[in-house]
């Protein structure tokens, strides 16, 4: 039985900070689209409500809000949660309160390893998948010598480590790394160091504004044509704001691109009409996870956490976002990822036409294998 | 001579970036006297006070207080030895009541000033003495008035009461009558007379009639140096003083 006859979905996202472009209002919109589509198509016997809040990328604000939602406002699921610190905090609270978390925005692999639990689903991507996708492809394509520009905090370190492992596993070599304070604004010193290291590829193990400025300044110092950049965490909004001139030829990995096939184009067009920007993978993933959850509630006829989780895990995900996606026991939703290369300005035909799809990384390869999992739920 | 000298300076000099504000001042203040320091504006009177109370360090020279060399001591140490000053610009604690102002003075000698855990009710024990002091300066009716709200002349009186609370052996008063009306001046003069009973007072004063009524001895400074010294009659007839300070030939 659905309690009170209402399923309440909370979107806890960054509405004002660094990640508000790649998640933010667009993620709320995607959730709303999912709910509307679900209600229209499935005519459920319960009501679906949406609440949203700005966590300002602060763990304590997020934790506070999530508690309030779970304890007071009868919210059944907290979703999106861009920024790892926010995700980790909310994951813990959800477990305490026995509620579901659907994470589309955050990237850290800690979510499905050290911090894993049985109420969380990590939907769209993680740093392992990004690093793995990009680093592997670039190394295999001949970029053997790497140098890392790493944001000096846990997230950056993890990204660097994941990518280094992949580089080495594929016969590459890491020439060095420099750790820059976070956030920074001038990266020229580090880039110069990277330049003189003799590496072919500069791996950007940072995010957001740091990545953007690194890319921009690499172009400025004439580094990019000779050495290539590999963005380990780059979103389409970043490419959009940098422009193709600065980003051309860069490799990156995403879980979604609007221009993959008719289905993605159709959905993205609907999204674009309302948001005036193409969806990021986070926003697309947000739609997908919400829809999957709602379908599970309908299927089980209850909003009971354990039952819904079981249902979600046993049902494969098939929509415009994922083909045969599957939620593993550690909470990781595995699906295909895409290796992309940024087009040259001349190759871009229409607005937001930014990527060449170089390869599809099959779900089985894209994510950290369960054998390497540090999640306590995984019995080895 | 066996005068009882409470304060003595030898060769006291203060330079500000090459400018000698006080130069080679030898000052002797006799215990129990009222001693005045006068001189034109900028003669260095306030600076002498600042040197004595260690607001500034002397460039050279010595200061002896009660026979001890205090040249290298700190403001706090000097105050604790019993030399307390008032300021040229009124210096009260503006947001405390008159009573509390005086208690700040009384509290100094107690050991509990660092007690942040005990109630200030302990301080009520001081109220009796504080009221006495307020009465002595004719401020009893202002006891519960916050100082900012008091008239200027009363504040000067309050400052004196606070200074008195420490029962200083040597009081330095910097222009105690400055900015006061006729009646206030009279009151302060009386007050100083009253409190001078068993202590020494060194004061800076421009009002010569005040100096005349009160002071036993007068030192005239000009451009940082001592120009003349003596009792009022001597000094006020000294042609150099008339020239430099009063500005009229005799």
């Amino acid at each position, binding site marked *: 039985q659905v309690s009170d006859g209402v399923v309440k979905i909370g979107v806890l996202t960054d509405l004002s900070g660094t990640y508000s472009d790649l998640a933010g209002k667009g993620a709320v919109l995607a959730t709303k689209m999912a709910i509307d589509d679900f209600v229209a198509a499935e005519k459920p016997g319960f009501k679906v409500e949406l609440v949203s809040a700005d966590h300002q990328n602060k763990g304590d604000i997020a934790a506070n809000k999530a508690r309030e939602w779970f304890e007071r406002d009868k919210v059944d699921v907290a979703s999106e949660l861009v920024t790892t610190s926010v995700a980790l905090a909310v994951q813990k609270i959800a477990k305490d309160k026995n509620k579901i978390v659907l994470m589309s925005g955050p990237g850290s692999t800690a979510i499905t390893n050290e911090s894993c639990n049985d109420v969380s689903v990590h939907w769209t991507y993680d740093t392992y998948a990004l690093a793995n996708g990009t680093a592997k492809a670039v190394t295999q394509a001949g970029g053997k010598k790497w140098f890392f520009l790493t944001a000096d905090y846990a997230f950056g370190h993890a990204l660097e480590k994941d990518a280094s492992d992949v580089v080495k596993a594929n016969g590459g070599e890491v020439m060095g790394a420099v750790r820059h*304070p976070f956030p*920074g*604004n001038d990266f020229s010193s*580090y880039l*110069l160091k990277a330049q003189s290291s003799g590496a072919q590829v500069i791996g950007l193990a940072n995010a*957001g504004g740091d990545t*953007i400025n690194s890319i*921009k300044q690499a172009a400025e110092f004439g580094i990019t044509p000779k050495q290539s950049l590999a963005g380990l965490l780059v979103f389409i909004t970043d490419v959009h*704001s*940098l422009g193709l001139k600065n980003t051309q030829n860069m490799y990156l990995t995403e879980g979604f691109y609007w221009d993959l096939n008719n289905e993605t184009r159709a959905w993205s067009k609907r999204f674009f009409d309302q948001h005036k920007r193409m969806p990021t993978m986070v926003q697309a993933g947000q739609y997908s996870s919400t829809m999957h959850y709602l379908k599970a509630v309908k299927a089980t006829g209850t909003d009971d956490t354990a039952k819904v989780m079981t249902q979600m895990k046993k049902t494969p995900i098939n929509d415009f976002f994922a083909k045969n996606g599957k939620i593993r026991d550690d909470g990781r939703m595995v699906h295909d990822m895409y290796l992309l290369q940024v087009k040259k300005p001349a190759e871009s035909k229409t607005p937001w036409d930014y990527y060449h799809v170089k390869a599809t990384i099959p779900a089985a390869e894209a994510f950290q294998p369960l054998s390497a999992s540090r999640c306590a739920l995984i019995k080895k | 001579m066996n005068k009882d000298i409470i304060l003595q300076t030898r060769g006291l000099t203060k330079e500000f970036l090459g400018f000698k504000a006080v130069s080679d001042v030898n000052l002797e203040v006799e215990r129990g006297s009222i001693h005045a320091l006068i001189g034109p504006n900028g003669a260095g009177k306030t600076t002498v006070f600042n040197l004595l109370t260690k607001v500034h360090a002397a460039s050279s020279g010595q200061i002896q207080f009660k026979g001890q060399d205090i040249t290298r001591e700190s403001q706090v140490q000097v105050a604790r030895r019993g030399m307390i000053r008032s300021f040229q610009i009124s210096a009260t604690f503006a947001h405390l009541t008159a009573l509390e102002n005086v208690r700040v003075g009384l509290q100094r000698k107690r050991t509990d000033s660092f007690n942040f855990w005990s109630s200030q009710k302990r301080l009520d024990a001081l109220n009796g003495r504080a009221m006495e002091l307020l009465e002595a300066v004719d401020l009893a009716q202002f006891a519960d008035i916050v100082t900012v709200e008091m008239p200027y002349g009363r504040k000067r009186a309050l400052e004196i009461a606070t200074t008195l609370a420490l029962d200083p052996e040597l009081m330095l008063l910097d222009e105690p009558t400055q900015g006061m009306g006729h009646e206030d001046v009279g009151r302060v003069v009386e007050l100083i007379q009253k409190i001078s009973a068993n202590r020494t007072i060194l004061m800076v004063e421009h009002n010569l009639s005040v100096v005349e009524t009160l002071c036993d001895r007068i030192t005239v400074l000009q451009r940082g140096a001592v120009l003349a010294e003596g009792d009022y009659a001597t000094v006020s007839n000294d042609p150099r003083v008339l020239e430099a300070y009063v500005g009229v030939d005799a």
Partner: protein
Amino acid sequence: MEIFGIPSQAFFGQLLLGLINGSFYAVLSLGLAIIFGLLNIINFAHGAQYMLGAFGAWLGLNYLGINYWLALVLSPLLVGALAVVIERSMLKRLYQLDHLYGLLLTFGLALMAEGLFKNFFGVSGESYEAPELLQGGMQLGFMYLPIYRGWVVVAALTVCLVAWYVIERTSLGATLRAATQRPDLVQALGINVPVLVTATYAAGAALAAFAGVLAAPIMQVNPVMGSNLIIVVFAVVVIGGMGSILGSIVTGLGLGVIEGLTKVFYPEASAVVIFLIMVLVLLVKPAGLFGKQA
């Protein structure tokens, strides 16, 4: 040849980069120092004014087709005009009060400006191209120097020199210096000090905006670009000695270089080295390196 274990080539490269960043610090801290010197106000809005300068250039280009060179003049003028409004309507009332209030007011203004721009432009920032003339780079032997960066150093140093010259060597500057010392008396001598004060605030803000336009092609034009920088610039001004013009220029450049070298030897600490230096300097010289003891 090696210097401290790194090839001398790279070393010179890093020095030059430090100097480039230092010239931003110099222009920004110069503006702050001028404002503090005359108005006794700690202008927390300086970072926001820098950001406004950059956005001015970007908006001008994208909506009005105003090119870089024009923006370099117009954007500071516009920000200066805004500063006039701020000074006339708000700051003016605070001169009698503690520094604290000026700081808090400008802090509030900075928050508002930042918040507004976040609302309209998001935070990932906008890209601004360097003008044709300054694109590309030069091989200096020890490094490849983007022409634009070279221009930044030249432009920033020129502005600093001009500002220094105006303040230290002209009659306007003499009036300014006199007014810092005794505004009432200067006014009694027939100089319109209130207007001078307004103009000074506007000039300081315009300097910040100028730095913003200079920065636009290098960094992403971004609503938070100023708030990330402002704290460091404060430290620079404090180290140089509040209100000292020369102090802020020299310290700005010097700290840019020190920070640059830290990035080479101990990159993790480069964000904090300036604060360490600040604490040490203030312990030894309480009024800063070039400040006069109060």
